[in-house]
């Protein structure tokens, strides 16, 4: 049953989305490698380091374009599922960020690596998605 629900969640995304997402991910990955190589060669306190990261930031943001195009192709129930998943992802990220930031300020705990926040957001989104899909099936 879990496998069926998971497959149904993936079925909401069409081939066009996966193609666009694949192109975006490839471009992003290549640019991350290139930017890393460039940034390493620049002086640590130079403003050029910041400038060098701008293209990869722009590509990272452009992933939203593929996502929005897919959301526009969703029907109304799929949008409701997506909204619930997005809220679950957003609130998970906010909960992690707020809790770790406050603990850092008041208890002096070490800062959390951004990758953990990314992972938490993904888990929140996925959990919200599967939960909503299961309710409507």
């Amino acid at each position, binding site marked *: 049953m879990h496998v069926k629900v998971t497959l*149904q969640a993936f*079925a*909401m995304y069409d081939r066009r989305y996966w193609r666009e997402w694949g192109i975006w991910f490839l471009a992003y990955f290549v640019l991350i490698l290139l930017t890393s190589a460039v940034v390493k060669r620049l002086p640590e306190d130079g403003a050029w380091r910041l400038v060098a990261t701008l293209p990869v930031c722009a590509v990272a943001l452009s992933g939203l374009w593929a996502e929005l195009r897919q959301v526009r192709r969703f*029907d*109304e*129930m*799929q949008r*409701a599922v997506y909204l619930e998943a997005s809220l679950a992802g957003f609130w998970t990220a906010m909960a992690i960020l707020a809790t770790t930031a406050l603990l850092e300020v008041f208890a002096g705990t070490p800062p959390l690596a951004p990758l953990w926040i990314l992972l938490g957001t993904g888990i929140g989104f996925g959990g919200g998605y599967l939960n909503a899909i299961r*309710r*409507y*099936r």
Partner: protein
Amino acid sequence: MKNSVRERRQRNDWTQQDLAHRLGVSRQTVNAIETGKYDPSLPLAFALAAQFQCRIEDLFEPS
């Protein structure tokens, strides 16, 4: 909300996929409407009524 979408669809000898295609939605959405797990928006309810050539109030009734 109760509805007679499944009965009317079967009477027309349409599959869920057929009806979904006619309405421009996914098969999962048609299934969720038929099982009463999802209440459609007003435009989609009108589209459903148009497909079955009936009024919205003939198709849906409050549970």
